[in-house]
């Protein structure tokens, strides 16, 4: 009995220890696998809902997709009826591409309906399609002059701009964003194929968002975290969407003014600038993204405590762009920029920069006010806006019976 009890105790103890060790090994392994899996998987969602009162690709998804193509088109449809069928086609393509699915079988009498770039099943892959219209669509071609959004006009030329006409404006503008570059390429090719004859690509820029380095807001190609102070939540809703109070046409409610600026960054020149000067031009620390008077990325700069700009220079980018006063508060914008890299210029310098994109309720009160404050900021020596345009992001496609600009065109 005595021996048995001791054996029982010993056996029990061995069993407990064995079970604990095994469980520990398995759960630690599972945790390590999960961590390894996370590092390779994108965090953006795979399906961005297409239907809604606002278009996707502006406030949704909340984590900006990593890749985008920005494409301006000119309309070549001859009539208003053709314009309607073009917008219906665009709606159908955007809905299919953002939802994913099997492309239709056209049988043996036609080339395949899909390029198969994404394989036989088109994945949604976080694709958002955002369609905007330029002021030129409201000329005399389609009888839409009276319905033009109140503030929509061709993009102004600001004092430091070097605009190339071939990369400015456009009747339509498509912002395609997704988790992978092949997905945005596929979407652009699909849309262009299905709308052939009705609209013609005018210019196009592909962009990417860098991963957080090492954390927080992604960096631009100047090495600074860009987009830290973007509005979000209810505040963003208030600042971005056109409502009925501003005298805008009824069809435009739920849309948003969409500004695109193609801005070259002279990175070789920038890399020859001392860190002190770089940080003073932005008003933030390069490593952490903290304002010069703060310690952390998301600290709020305290401009009233620094009225003469001893800590954060008065002409620094963050101070001019967002002075954080009661008067400047309504001028805030939602930025949704992407880096671009186009290879080389004729001098052998790297041709890269920022596809600046922002959304707002009021072009003048917001983007133009901010850009006016930024005229002649010290940063202009290292950047060169050369293209882009003012557009109006259409209200969302609400449901299966709705289509882009339906209330404008019917």
């Amino acid at each position, binding site marked *: 009995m005595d021996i048995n009890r001791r054996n029982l105790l010993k056996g029990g103890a061995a069993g407990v220890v064995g079970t604990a*060790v095994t469980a520990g090994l398995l759960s*630690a*392994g599972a945790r*390590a696998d999960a961590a390894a899996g996370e590092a390779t998987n994108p965090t953006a969602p795979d399906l961005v809902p297409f239907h809604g009162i606002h278009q996707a690709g502006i406030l949704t998804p909340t984590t900006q997709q990593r890749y985008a193509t920005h494409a301006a088109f*000119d309309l070549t449809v001859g009539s208003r009826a053709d314009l309607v069928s073009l917008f219906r086609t665009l709606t159908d393509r955007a809905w299919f591409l953002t939802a994913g699915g*099997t492309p239709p*079988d056209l049988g043996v*009498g036609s080339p395949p309906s899909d390029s198969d770039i994404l394989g036989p099943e088109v994945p949604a892959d976080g694709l958002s399609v955002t369609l905007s219209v330029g002021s030129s669509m409201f000329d005399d071609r389609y009888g839409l002059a009276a319905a033009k959004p109140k503030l929509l006009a061709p993009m102004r030329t600001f004092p430091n701009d070097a605009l190339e006409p071939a990369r400015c404006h456009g009747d339509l503008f498509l912002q395609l964003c997704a988790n992978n570059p092949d997905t945005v390429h596929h979407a652009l090719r699909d849309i262009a194929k299905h709308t052939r004859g009705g609209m013609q690509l005018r210019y196009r820029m592909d962009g990417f968002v860098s991963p957080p380095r090492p954390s927080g807001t992604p960096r631009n190609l100047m090495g600074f975290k860009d987009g830290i102070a973007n509005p979000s939540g209810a505040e963003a809703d208030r600042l971005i969407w056109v409502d009925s109070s501003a005298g805008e046409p009824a069809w435009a409610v739920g849309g948003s003014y969409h500004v695109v600026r193609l801005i070259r960054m002279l990175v070789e020149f920038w890399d020859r600038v001392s860190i002190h000067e770089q940080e003073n031009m932005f008003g933030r620390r390069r490593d952490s993204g903290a304002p010069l008077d703060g310690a952390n990325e998301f600290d709020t700069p305290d401009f009233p405590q620094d009225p003469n700009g001893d800590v954060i220079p008065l002409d620094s980018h963050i101070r001019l762009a967002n002075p954080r006063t009661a008067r400047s508060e309504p001028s805030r914008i939602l930025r949704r920029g992407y880096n671009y890299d186009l290879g080389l210029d004729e001098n052998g310098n790297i041709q890269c920069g920022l596809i600046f994109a922002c959304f707002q309720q009021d072009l003048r009160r917001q983007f133009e006010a901010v850009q006016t404050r930024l005229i002649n900021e010290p940063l202009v020596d290292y950047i060169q806006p050369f293209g882009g345009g003012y557009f109006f992001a259409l209200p969302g496609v609400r449901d299966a019976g709705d289509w882009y600009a339906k209330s404008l065109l019917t």
Partner: protein
Amino acid sequence: MWADALPNLLIGLREGLEAGLVVSILLAAIRRSGGHRASTASTAPIWLGVVAAVVLALSFGAVLTFYRSVLPTTGQEALGGALSVVAVVLVTGMIFWMRRTARGLSGELRAKVADALRVSTAALALTAFLAVGREGIETALFLWTAAQASGTTVAPLIGAAAGIAVAVVLCVLLYRQSVRIRLDLFFNRTAILLIIIAGGVLSYGLGDLQDAGLLPGRTWLAFDLAPHLDVSSWWVSIVTGVTNLSPTMTWLQVAAYLGYLGIVLTTFVRAGRQANQPTADTPKPAEAPAPAPSRPPMRRRTVLTAVTAALVLPPVIAAALIVFAPGGLAASGQQIDVTTSACAPGWSAARTGAQSFTLVNKSGHTAEVNLVQAASQGIVAEIETLGPGTQQTMSATLAPGNYAWRCLIAALPTTVSATVAATGPAGAGGSAPRPVTPVSVADLTPPLNEYNAYVTGKLGQLAGQVVRVRADLAAGNIPAAQQDWLPAQLTWEQVGEEPYGSFGDSGVEIGAGPQGFPQGVNDPGFTGLRRLEYGLWHGQPASELITVADRLSSDIAGLQAQLPQVSLDPTDLPIRAHEILEDALRDTLTGQDDLGAGAEFPETYADTQADQVVLGELAALLNARDPSLLPTAYQQLDALRQALLATQTNGQWQSLSAAPLAQRQRVDAAIGAVLETLADVPDLLEVPAH
């Protein structure tokens, strides 16, 4: 070649040793226990297990060879891992069972041992089966992947066979050695080795299960020596082969290995010490009955037969099923077989809507397979080349109606399946595309004759226009020559000739640009209309260009003389319908073809006329297949011509670079639209390859 053989020699040696060690220990145990009894029947279960395992491994190799995708990687790992763990459990059990047996033997409990041996016939066979089977499947896998990787099968096979042979010799030597030593000593020595091997197998098996995703922790590595070791070197192969440890191990593998060795070795050694001290519960010899000799031999044979059947038949049957009935694996589609004598022999039911079929070519020849709608004899879906011994997935969307399969194999009569009605709701899975009736070369011959007659007329016109240019040059009047060059160029565009010569060399000499000549526009080989253009717009003297004009005239005369013989292949005519305008978009409307005249828009206009002629010749064939295509295409061609005419100022053509962006965009959009429509023409008018 021998570089391919060497790794496989090592693999054969390693896997052979692993399997052989277990088998020889088992054999030695049996021999030893039965040695005094003159009966050798007791080794049969082991050989049975070995044979079954070899059969399994060969079946596995056959399956892999026939259907490489049958077992996904994770499946191979899961199977290998599970087999490994089972093998460890059994081997461990064997070690302790042998120790007890040995102890019993030393106590001269022969009868009891014989009984134990017979009772565990299945266990012996199973252990041998698992040990050899695991290594055999590994070897089959290794060999198969090595053969896939090196692209040859002979060298890897020779290497592996040599390795296995060496392993067998080594095992025999070991075995010979073992029968001379005392059984308990043998067990004491070999059991330790066996435990170490089994520990390695356990760790290896757990690693496989982790790779298969059945156990977590695949990425939680204890160490990774792979970057620091040459894994293919002979000594690493021997170390990893004997111990089964890999240069990269997870914590679970390390813990299992150390835990197994710690527990099993300790228990084994302690059990050995206890065995040397007589204890109270050691069975007395006299208490043991001796039932073994009393068993009838018939009964034993029945048991053996049953075990044989249980071990050998399943893998053979499974392999046969997999190899000869692959349809069971292609769960995603209905299987359609192609044989030399029959097309889709098993096809008996169809449903409407979008679906996929798995086409399996068992004919040994390359085949074309069509799914044909019975009423129209139109093709609904097709695979143009299905290689011998391969399978492909084909998707099709069927409307309600009757359908049959048609299999076309060169040099064999075409076979047609039974006609089957597709039933189900109309429009399920999207609207069904229109069936397309195949076109024959005979169908395309009249259009080609018409086209040749048209080209003959155009060449006559061209010859006259070149004569005028020559007269201008003879008069030294360059401006007049420039003015007369354009109609000649436009006439040539209206021919609709390919820039790289559907009419052979003569066509190239008349119409091609300087691309492809080493010295470009200055190359002596560059002649023809484009050469004239370059000279006329680059200040070259008339005297020099007269030579070019004369050469051009003789080239035109040469082409006129050869024309019907050098013309297009009839099957190329449907392709020209969209290629004429694709060439215009690619070469003319980009400005690439221009050598000074700036005639991009009138040239494109002439191309639309050529296209209209080709489409007109194909009209009957196209209307029979898609009545809406030509009206749409004609309308779009008209819109393109309107867009081109809109680039004129005061009735004069401008150059491409002078046209405003909006005008160019309208031209590009219009040509894009008509090209999307014309893309269907070659598909609708395709001549079957067989």
